[in-house]
């Protein structure tokens, strides 16, 4: 029997009836119930879903709007679903625009889905504005919140780890005060920073200016043609961080996200335990048994607690809207007294008036940061946990007791550089606290349609206060007789920015133009104070009453201050043109001057860029290739620059230096500070980029391929010059040139897409090849074309790397051991390739050779997201290949001749499988400690569950998740973590004092009210 189709009037009737039977329900509740009561009786609705060309679409999700009732199309694109006659069906499919169709009493509903151009219509934040993704002509990658790394992320950098091809982000330290390191498309400089320009809503900042939970998206301008609009600051790429913003008409919404985490050391150094140590002693090693059993690394460790809370409130209407965000981060590290606490508050208000002709924005951001310091920060320093304390824990005798009989920490000061690590932690007190406050505002005036003037001002002030003290039980008094030590220091940085831009857009038929012109002024002032004192009458005041120390009166206290400032003035313009969205063109230029060049002949530099794109799929010959959603070829070229990090290098300067005994009085002398270089100019990076953006099969397969060549000319460095006649043996100059080239592939796949189960997989791969082309020019001639870099530290005291023309940066350079004798003495390979025994080997610099390279040649990442119904699982993995690591821990702690310190268990592994190292072999830097660094890291695993909406009254969304970070690493590297420092001229050094990396476990909760 067929029931009549429910008619709206019937529903109303039913509602009325319901209203009579139930105690005063609202009409809408009544109608829902009524609909449900009729649902069972309704006929199933059937239909077929096709694409725009009429081909059937399998796997399309069909859902009754506002319910959990859903179905899916079969191979023929057919579906069946039970739904009330007045309901609305939602058809959704990856790569297509979701479509809503009101049933309106029908039983058969056929739908043609249109390809989703949303992906292409997405805007990407580019320099001084946004661009439609479709219009991009350069290598720009945007990562949205949902793709971020989840869990206890330390800063914005970690959110992107492994996500973007060509952008390698490492967290080489487990210190909760440490930041991630970003290296974009290789090392392009010798001396300058490799840190990309980080803009937070257009204002320069750092990776931790805003907490990760307050970030909505991050866009990375990779190639020179994109970054050139930022001229001198864009050489290392630009990372544009967009915070959560109020937009449009929003009902007041409160979002809470929070998590608790704990950490474990990712891998512990395998030093001899007390038992093993005693066994070696029994075997004749000249160790000393002190009668106890202590695991020193454990003794300084703790089970850390981390908890983070983020609360944001958004609301407003089309005219005025606002956002308030509060974030508290409490981090403890794996070592005692290693921690970091930050509260960040941010408010942002938008107002639009005069029919949208004027738009105002005002923002305030303030963060309070505090952490324990076990290191004296000095004049410029920061420093959380003292790496030297960790060193003391590693090398301390495992049979030594923690406490001595008198209840103090047991010490043994007659051994050089040997201190009880716990005494270093607990007989010192230190705290660094800082406040970072940013005020910003902007005004947009649109006098006529398509023409906009914008003014943006911001002021960022950073103030840090440091205090550090060592009491009278600290080695500094027990051994060095300081009788109590204290220091204080401050850092103050003030940064101002003014940016004025005018932009104009116009579309004439198939031609679309945009133009931008602007002016930018940035001023930065830094001030530092520091003082220290010792010989205190009491420990009571730690560093808070520093004047009572007697060293001040004896003339032995230290005091220092410094101040510097610089500014940057830039003018810029950009034109874009597109024809039929098929042919795209962009040209920009920035002209910029820096006060760093004051006194030099040319402080101004010009940084042009041009790029073009061709949407091949819009051509007629591809009209029928329906599997192609997008295919775009891009070509770009751009120039960016770098200024030296010091001012006044172009002019002769005098500075006060060492004292001179003048008539019985010590007088500070006034002498030249450096060789002036009036020809100092911008270091310039010229970058060419060819790229292909592709998207096939309704977005099931998409991605980009880029190839770049970056050449840095006029490399700034302190070049060797002849002295005499020069005052000093080096001059900061623009001499060498360096090349980086590489390929980047990004592939996004949706291998499975069903109603209940979706699998997204993204894969990225990149290569980087780096070569120093020259170290000479007409003014600076080097006959040997190399210089050395890196340092082993004492007691080995030699350089570790060589920077040589024709070679890549990062080459390890030292003695090569090829074998050992049967009694464990090194056998080297000399400069002639001959094997030479230890005692015959002169250890001459000429016998050193390249032992490897610390910069990876290949990087890869593979990220997967699975969603099954309400359950989701994310796994991010990344790896680096083709590089070596100099393992300092092995170099220092595998030596068998050093008996006053503990050693690694691996010291007893036969060298080259032949013999344990002879005790007569001194500590030495050689190829045996240079290891293959290749690794594959399963980093972030997140398992989450989204509860049904409105499960709890007033709460719209609930999500819980569990995550791990740095989960495990597959590597042959013997050290703690192959992901080591890659910055600077000595990359690949795994420093022995490095705070070990950690594995993090997190439980998190997100709520929306």
């Amino acid at each position, binding site marked *: 029997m067929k029931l009549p189709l429910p008619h709206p009037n019937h529903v109303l009737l039913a509602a009325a009836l319901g209203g009579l039977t139930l105690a005063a329900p609202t009409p809408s509740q009544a109608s829902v119930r009524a609909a449900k009561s009729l649902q069972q009786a309704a006929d199933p609705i059937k239909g077929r879903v096709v694409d725009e060309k009429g081909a059937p679409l399998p796997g399309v999700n069909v859902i009754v709007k506002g319910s959990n009732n859903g179905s899916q199309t079969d191979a023929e694109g057919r579906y069946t679903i039970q739904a009330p006659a007045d309901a609305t069906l939602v058809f959704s499919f990856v790569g297509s625009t979701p479509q809503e169709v009101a049933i309106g009493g029908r039983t058969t509903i056929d739908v043609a889905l249109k390809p989703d151009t949303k992906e292409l219509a997405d805007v990407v934040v580019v320099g001084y504005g946004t661009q439609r993704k479709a219009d991009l002509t350069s290598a720009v990658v945007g990562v949205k919140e949902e793709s971020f790394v989840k869990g206890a992320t330390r800063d914005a950098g970690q959110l992107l780890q492994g996500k973007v091809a060509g952008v390698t982000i490492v967290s080489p330290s487990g210190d909760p005060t440490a930041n991630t390191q970003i290296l974009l498309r290789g090392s392009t400089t010798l001396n300058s920073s490799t840190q990309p320009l980080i803009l937070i809503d257009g204002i320069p900042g750092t990776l931790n200016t805003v907490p990760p939970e307050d970030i909505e998206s991050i866009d990375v301008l990779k190639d020179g043609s994109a970054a050139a609009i930022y001229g001198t600051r864009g050489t290392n790429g630009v990372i544009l961080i967009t915070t959560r913003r109020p937009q449009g008409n929003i009902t007041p919404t409160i979002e809470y996200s929070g998590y608790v985490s704990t950490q474990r050391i990712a891998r512990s150094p395998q030093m001899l335990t007390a038992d093993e140590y005693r066994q070696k002693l029994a075997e004749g090693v000249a160790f000393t048994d002190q009668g106890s059993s202590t695991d020193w690394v454990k003794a300084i460790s703790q089970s850390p607690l981390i908890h983070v809370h983020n609360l944001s409130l958004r609301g407003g209407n089309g005219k005025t809207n606002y956002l308030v965000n509060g974030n508290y981060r409490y981090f403890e590290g794996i070592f005692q007294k290693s921690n970091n606490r930050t509260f960040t508050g941010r408010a942002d208000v938008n107002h639009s008036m005069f029919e949208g002709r004027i738009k105002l924005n005002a923002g305030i951001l303030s963060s309070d940061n505090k952490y324990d310091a076990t290191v004296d920060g000095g004049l410029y320093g920061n420093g959380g946990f003292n790496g030297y304390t960790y060193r003391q824990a590693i090398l301390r005798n495992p049979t030594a007791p923690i406490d001595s009989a008198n209840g103090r920490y047991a010490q043994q000061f007659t051994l050089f550089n040997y201190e009880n690590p716990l005494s270093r932690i607990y007989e010192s007190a230190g705290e660094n606290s800082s406040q970072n406050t940013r005020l910003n505002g902007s005004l947009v005036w649109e006098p006529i349609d398509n023409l906009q003037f914008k003014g943006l001002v911001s002021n960022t002030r950073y103030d840090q206060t440091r205090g550090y003290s060592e009491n009278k039980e600290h080695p500094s008094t027990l051994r060095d007789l300081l009788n109590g030590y204290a220091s204080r220091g401050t850092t103050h940085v003030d940064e101002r920015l003014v940016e004025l831009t005018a932009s104009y857009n116009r579309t004439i038929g198939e031609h679309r133009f945009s133009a931008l012109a602007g002016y930018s002024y940035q001023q930065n002032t830094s001030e530092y104070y520091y003082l220290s004192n010792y010989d205190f009458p009491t420990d009571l005041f730690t560093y808070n009453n520093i004047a009572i120390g007697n060293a001040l009166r004896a003339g032995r206290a230290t005091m220092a201050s410094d101040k510097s400032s610089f500014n940057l003035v830039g003018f810029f313009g950009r034109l874009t043109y597109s024809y039929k969205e098929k042919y795209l063109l962009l040209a920009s230029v920035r002209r910029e001057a820096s006060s760093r060049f004051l006194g030099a002949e040319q402080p101004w530099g010009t940084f042009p860029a041009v790029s073009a794109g061709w949407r091949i799929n819009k051509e007629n010959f591809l009209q029928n290739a329906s599997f192609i959603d997008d295919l775009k070829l891009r070509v770009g070229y751009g120039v960016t620059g770098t200024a030296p990090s010091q001012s006044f290098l172009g002019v002769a300067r005098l500075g006060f230096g060492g004292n001179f005994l003048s008539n019985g009085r010590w007088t500070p002398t006034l002498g030249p500070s450096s060789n002036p270089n009036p020809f100092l100019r911008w270091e310039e990076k010229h970058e060419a980029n060819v790229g292909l953006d592709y998207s096939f099969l309704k977005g099931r397969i998409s991605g980009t391929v880029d190839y770049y060549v970056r050449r840095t000319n006029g490399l700034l460095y302190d070049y060797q010059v002849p002295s*005499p006649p020069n005052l000093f043996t080096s001059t900061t100059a623009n001499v060498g040139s360096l090349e980086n080239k590489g390929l980047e592939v990004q592939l996004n796949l949706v291998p499975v897409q069903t109603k209940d189960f979706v699998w997204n997989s993204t894969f990225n791969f990149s290569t980087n090849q780096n070569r120093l082309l020259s170290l000479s020019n007409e003014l600076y001639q080097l006959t040997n074309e190399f210089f050395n870099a890196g340092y082993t530290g004492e007691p080995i005291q030699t350089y570790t790397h060589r920077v040589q023309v024709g070679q890549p940066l990062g080459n390890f350079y030292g003695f090569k051991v090829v074998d050992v004798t049967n009694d464990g003495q090194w056998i080297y390979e000399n400069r002639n390739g001959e094997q030479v025994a230890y005692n015959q080997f002169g250890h001459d*610099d000429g016998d050193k050779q390249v032992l490897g390279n610390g910069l990876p040649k290949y990087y890869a990442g593979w990220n997967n997201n699975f969603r099954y119904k309400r359950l989701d699982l994310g796994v991010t993995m990344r790896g680096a290949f083709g590089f070596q690591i100099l393992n300092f821990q092995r170099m220092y702690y595998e030596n068998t001749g050093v008996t006053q310190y503990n050693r690694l268990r691996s010291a007893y592994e036969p060298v080259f499988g032949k013999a344990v190292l002879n005790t007569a072999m001194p500590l030495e830097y050689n190829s045996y400690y240079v290891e293959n660094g290749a690794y594959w890291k399963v980093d972030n695993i997140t398992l989450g569950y989204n509860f049904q909406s409105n499960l709890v009254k007033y709460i719209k969304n609930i999500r819980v998740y569990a995550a791990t970070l740095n989960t495990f690493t597959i590597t042959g590297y013997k050290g703690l973590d192959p992901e080591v420092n890659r910055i600077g001229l000595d990359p690949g050094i795994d420093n022995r004092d490095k705070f070990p990396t950690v594995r993090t476990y997190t439980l998190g909760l997100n709520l929306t009210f």
Partner: protein
Amino acid sequence: MKNFLPFARVSMLATAGLGLFGSCTKLDDQSYNQIVTSQFTPGAADVPAIVGSAYVNWRPLYLEFQGVYRINETTTDETVTPGRPNGWVDDGSYRRLHQHTWTALDPTPNFAWEQAYGGITKCNQVLFQIQSNSLVIAAADKDQTIAELRVLRASYYYILCDLFGNVPIVDRFDVPAGFLPQQSTRAQVYDFIVKEIRESLPQLSTTVSTATYGRFNNRWAAQALLAKMYQNAQVYKGQADWANCISACDAIINSNNYTLEPTQASVFATQNQGSKEIVFAIPFDEVYATGFRIHMQTLQPQNQLTYNSQGTMWGGGICAIPQFINSYNPSDNRLKTNWIQGQQLTAAGVPLNGSFGSNAGKPLVFTNTLPSVVLGSENDGFRVGKFEIKQGVLVDLSNDFPLFRYADVLMMKAEALLRTGQGAQAATLVTQVRQRNFLANPALATVTAADLAQGSSYPYGPANNNVVSPVQGGADIQYGRFLDELGWEFAAEGHRRQDMIRFGVYTTKSWLSHTPNGAYRTLMPIPQNVLNTNSNLKQNPGY
């Protein structure tokens, strides 16, 4: 017209904006911590600070970790930096110094070159400032200041002449852009130094006071430098000049400004400034002018308790070569005062124990032993104790480092007399210097011309595990006894290399782990860094 108005407003704004741009392109030109030279006119009060800047290099040049002291001491038969249980191998650089296998890439010669020329270029700059009147000095002082700076510059060239020989002479600051100095021969460098000093002498002060202490405005300091040049004329120029050496020494002796201290130790005391024996010293101070750290390099960490020092000593780098110690007469007081030896004690007199290996817990006793340059124990070798280490020393010593002292003047004259056939007069001077060291047994102080004509008592020959084999001895060294006298009197003062070269021993004899490695080793190689930047320079022969 409706659309016109906004455009007008825009253009007005643009005009205003352009005006704004003009004032916003100014570059920040404030220097907060250094003086931009072109914006600075020095006054009379700045003269000591500016002139003094040219002296500052002497401190690191001589005593910095890789300073000239290390070359002049540890390449010789007197001291060595052996490997120790806690390190001191440092890429083999100390061992290469001992075995005369250093290269142009070694850090020590490079450091000396940089510091010496750093001092020279500063002298040139200040001279240029004075001569071009950009630094105005009172007329009465001008000539003396110029003369002082010329001698100071000559003193840096003396180090270069002694170490490298064939170096470029640059005596002016206002050189054209891209100027690359030409290399001079060692003889030319010698002549230049002698000429500079001689021309300057008349303008220098004859008064010895705090105003001339540690400076070359002191005529006698300049004379001592001149005497040093003449003493080494045969080596530097290939032609001896003993007569001039004697007259330079006589000028100092006859000025009656200097005498021998009653004890040698007082020349090296913490408060040795103003000692009547010091002709020229490099002033140091634990607070104002740091860098005197020989004790940090020579002592064991435990010795921190001996002196209640604020710094932990670095673990025993430099020590005496046992063969050298064996050459002393056991009654010579200098054997005890110049070398730290035997059981080490805390300041309170409690014996200290060893820390390393089988030595741990056993008495820390510095013995006159050393198996080889490769590895010494913490007990091996007597340590440098010539310079007083005061109780409660910070990290740096306040002792001034005497570069020229009166005993040296007497011995230079004695050598000149000895080599010109006036042995008896030479012996008188040598005896005069010896006397204070044999107070308990004065007869032993006396030496005769016949004694001085004898060879050396140094038991030369390669030594392994404290056995010298084969024994070469020093009997064949002409005036070897006089060389021994120089060794005993000036031990650990950085004289030895020069003296050994002058007596022909430096590259011909063996000691400890050293065997002769070529006569060319009397000159250091010109550092590779320097050759890289100045194509006019040629490496010294042999390297």
